[in-house]
């Protein structure tokens, strides 16, 4: 069978194109994976902040019933210490 030069050329081009597809696919998947990991990390930080905020709010509510928890809230800076000078409000 005679080998057609055109057929050979087309096959070479197709092979190169297929290899390029593999490389580009790998690059895209790697970038997308890294991006997703960063987004998850950012979301977790924000979620934890929200969660701790809600916990602090509930603990503040609880402190109205049981002031024994006040030292913990004061140590965390959630509740101002009793007797502490109020912040200047510019007046």
């Amino acid at each position: 069978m005679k080998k057609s030069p055109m057929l050979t050329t087309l096959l070479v081009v197709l092979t190169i194109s297929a290899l390029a597809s593999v490389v580009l696919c790998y690059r895209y998947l790697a970038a997308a994976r890294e991006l997703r990991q960063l987004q998850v990390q950012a979301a977790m930080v924000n979620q934890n902040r929200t969660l701790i905020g809600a916990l602090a709010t509930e603990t503040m509510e609880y402190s109205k019933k049981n002031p024994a928890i006040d030292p913990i809230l004061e140590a965390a800076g959630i509740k101002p210490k009793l007797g502490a000078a109020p912040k200047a409000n510019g007046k």
Partner: protein
Amino acid sequence: MDNSENQNPTESRSDSSDLNDLRLETAGLRQLLISLIILMIVLSGTLNLYLLRQSRTARADLVAIKPQVTQMVADYNKMNAPVINDFVQKLVDFGQKHPDFMPIVQKYGLVRAIGGTNTVAPQGLNPATAPVTAPAPVPKK
């Protein structure tokens, strides 16, 4: 006797016609093959362009987001996480001494077992080391 010597002109013409048919079929198949390869090259090229564009977009997003998230996580781990862990630990200790506070402790998943000694911070407090799973869902009031 050799068979070829017995072939009459009619048979010879028939063989020649079959050969021509085969040649035509081969040429047709070759054209079809070339057309298919060209089609595949076009499809593959289109896919390459799409992947290239997606890859560039993803990398641009990555370059834009990575420093911010890295800084945010580093700040969180350096400044917030110790304070939060200390706060949570104190709340757990407080909950063990004051049973009326335990519902709040349990609601936020601060303890693994009721009355147990294994205390844990809320899941995912440390984003750099935490699993990908979301923190324990807070039940609605």
